[in-house]
């Protein structure tokens, strides 16, 4: 299966990466080459094989349902490109 420029534009939108028409045109054949190559997995008979989800068998641990962190607002905001009044600031969302 090959992806069209329109599909590449859709994927870029899903991935939230702004792309010009030129970039889309350049990327489409690259993605098609990679997708065509990974499609060789179609040859493998995987009937009855469960998808691998944990590479090393182990149980997910449980811990006490208690607060273990917090009280570090300034640390959390320290690297924000824009922080105001103890919050992350973003462009206006509602007019």
């Amino acid at each position, binding site marked *: 299966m090959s992806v069209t420029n329109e*599909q*590449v534009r859709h994927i870029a939108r899903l991935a939230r*990466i702004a792309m010009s028409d030129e970039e889309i045109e350049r990327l489409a054949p690259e993605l098609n080459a990679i997708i065509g190559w990974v499609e060789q997995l179609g040859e493998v008979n*995987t009937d009855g*094989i469960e998808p*691998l989800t944990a*590479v090393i068998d182990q149980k997910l641990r449980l811990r006490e349902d208690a607060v273990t962190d917090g009280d570090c607002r300034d640390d959390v905001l320290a690297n924000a490109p824009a922080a105001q009044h103890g919050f992350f600031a*973003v*462009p206006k969302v509602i007019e």
Partner: protein
Amino acid sequence: MNEITSKTIAELRDGFRDGDFTASEIAEAYNAAVAAAKLLNAYTVTTPEDALACAEVADKARGSEDLPSLAGIPLGIKDLFATKGVDTTAGSHILKDFKPTYESTVTANLRKAGAGMLGKLNMDEFAMGSSNETSTYGPVISPWRRKGSNVGLTPGGSSGGSAAAVAAEIAPGVTGTDTGGSIRQPAAFVGICGIKPTYGRCSRWGIVSFASSLDQAGSMAKTVRDCAILLEAMAGFDPKDSTSLDLPVPKWEANLSGDLRGKRVGIPREYRIDGVPDDINLLWDKGIEWLKDAGAEPVEISLPHTKYALPTYYIIAPAEASSNLARYDGVRYGLREEGVKTLDDMYAATRAAGFGAEVKRRVMIGTYVLSAGFYDAYFTKAQRVRALIKQDFARAFEQCDMILTPTAPSAAFGIGETTDPLAMYLNDVFAVPASLAGLPAMSVPGGLDENGLPLGLHVIGKELDEQMVLNAGLAIEERAGFTARPEKWW
């Protein structure tokens, strides 16, 4: 000064303890070597004051009973590890100027063991690459050159700065991370040792995520023993990582032994592939002879799904990456592109400006294989094939105790020589299967090719059996007699 930087970590540790030199002398020797090697572009940030401060602590504590294992040893840290107050960018423009307010578990463990930090090491952007050419800081130049040539070579990747630093003796040992070969391939390219432990041995907490089901930290150094020393300090259970193994860290260094009598070494027939230079297959044959000489019995094994490992990896790793990298949105940290109107436009503009070409390519592939209508055909299918690859290894290990292969299908190549993404991905053809199966694996230098460039041998072990991997590595090291060092041109 040079005398100090040519030593192994074990020699530095013992010499410091015996009073042959002080920790401050070690730190000063390395700080000077680092400052004189800027042409290699191995470090993104240097922290000489950190190395010196830790050395002073070590000098004061010398002679005390409970001197920690790495007291007096300064290390280089891959830029993927969060280091408190020190730039941590994963080689990406999108994390420009990011200074964590916390320390990764692995580097915190190294600090507890007394190690100082020389600086942060350059790498492929978000560890996506096999040549260190995708870094926002530009490529690392390998200290190695082909005989009679001054063409700049790549040190491999993604831990390219890490590899170059050890080979150029501007760090006695370093941390690396390995998602699909990122410790082992660069180690092979520059003639050093590098080990990726079993998935879950080292905590992933505080390591910038690429593909969480594959990412694993490991050590790189001149010798197998040094790798064991470092890995022992890095590994250990961490409740902050849900996939961290709740197991004690074995005494890998104390139990090192190159005696392989009674052990069987598996030679996978599917790893004899077309297009691999003769030098590499000849070295592989030599490696088999060395392990035989150490007492091991070679057995031919089959890993039937080997050829599907790379395509499986290039579905799973980009899928996980596209999800992990969704966090770079220009809101909480890193770059933000201004001058756009809406929040959605700000995300898209920030990510367009912040990610490099290879990262964008992989995020796009990952987004595609996870998108509605394609998820089962690509992602679930790849997870099923991954289960078969793991099963291949489980069956093979019924017949053998370790597996020997070449590390990479070529020696180091020139900067800018490999431009096709698929051709670049093939670098990890021998390294990726062990990553998909979560197994411990290491590269050890075996010899030089016809151009005078290092080649590595690759040992894969059973789950949790780093000891066997290290022991086989030691047996190879003892017989290969690899002492070649790059001639200093920088």
